[in-house]
């Protein structure tokens, strides 16, 4: 049960964020300014959007990979006999 609860925190945070961000559309400032009017008026701004989407996607993938590596190493890092120092490479 505890293991199943691990993603719950992430889901709660992300879901809350989505409610605030998606729920207020199409307003960026509710009742004052539309999101469409708040976009930086630079031609080609769409590429900035692509870049940041790519950054977020790749960071999510890396984080998943890192978590996987962390889990994989649990046996090595945390089950070491008492008194023996942990591998310390920083």
């Amino acid at each position, binding site marked *: 049960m505890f293991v199943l609860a691990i993603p719950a925190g992430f889901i709660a945070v992300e879901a809350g964020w989505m409610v605030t961000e998606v729920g207020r559309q199409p307003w960026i400032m509710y009742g004052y300014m539309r999101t469409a009017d708040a976009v930086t008026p630079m031609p080609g701004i769409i590429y900035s959007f692509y870049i940041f989407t790519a*950054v977020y996607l790749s960071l999510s993938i890396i984080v998943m990979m890192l978590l996987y590596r962390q889990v*994989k190493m649990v046996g090595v890092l945390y089950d070491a006999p008492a008194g023996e120092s942990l591998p310390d490479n920083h």
Partner: protein
Amino acid sequence: MIYVVMAYLWASVLLYVLMGGADFGAGVLEFLSTSKSKDRTRKVMYRAIGPIWEANHMWLIIAIVILFVGFPVIYTTMSVYLHIPLTIMLLGIIARGTAFTFRNYDAVKDNMQVVYSKTFMYSSIITPLFLGIIAGSAVSGRIDPQATNFLDAYVFSWLSPFPVAVGIFTVIICGFLAAIFIIGETKSEEDKKRFVTKSKHMSIAALAAAVLVFIAAQMEGIPLAHWLFGNSVSIICVILAIISLVWMWASLFTKQTKLIRVIAGAQVTLLLVAITYEHYPVLVNLKNTEGLSLLTQQGAEKTIRSLGIALLAGSVLILPSLFYLLYSFSNRTEE
């Protein structure tokens, strides 16, 4: 209240350059170290900067929020015409922070470490480079709100010799600050000696980069000499900075770590005073039109008042905890 807000803006820019600069500089130094000493350099630097690096970006955020809330026209102008360098700088900050964290917390120490280190080093250079470019283009009057084509409006607003020279100067100043800072952070004589040498190299490089900035200013017809020598306050600052450079070299030989730190910090402060004094209260110079002044472009009086109060109240809460953070990490024993 407007003066309180301006003082906070100036102070947060200064603190970002000093503390964030030392932080970026760690990556610059890692890049410049020979492959043999890279590991050692990295270890010493990690101990010195590791725990506090996240705190430094607070100053940048404060500066941005002050501009956003208090001076919306200046904020808009900068974020529209300098969109490209700002985006690159932001990507640099993201890449740097994540690479640094992943490098330390990745459970498996394999070849990914090389990727993290490379990302960390390159983004440590790119970020201050573009910070300098942004500052350089804001003062140089290259931003042209009347430009009609894409290149003039969004690319040549920052891509030209002067902003780039200022960017290079900023990178070197960061390396210099980091080298100076780390001398006092290590107890090993061998490391101390290495960073003293590095500080010397970086201060020479900074002088060379300063010459480069002057040449670039000359090429573009930017009256840099007038900014620095056109009023008595700036002249005094420049002279003091030069005298203190000699003093700093002398103290580098005797390794008085606290003293050199103060001198190096003072030098950067003096340079910032010298540059901003002549411009005050103009923050962004524009092409063919009057620059954007902090005094004429301020937001509504109510906004400024609330912003000032928020900043003062925030300082009461934040500053003691920040000092405590720095204090608690400065007392750690050497591993």
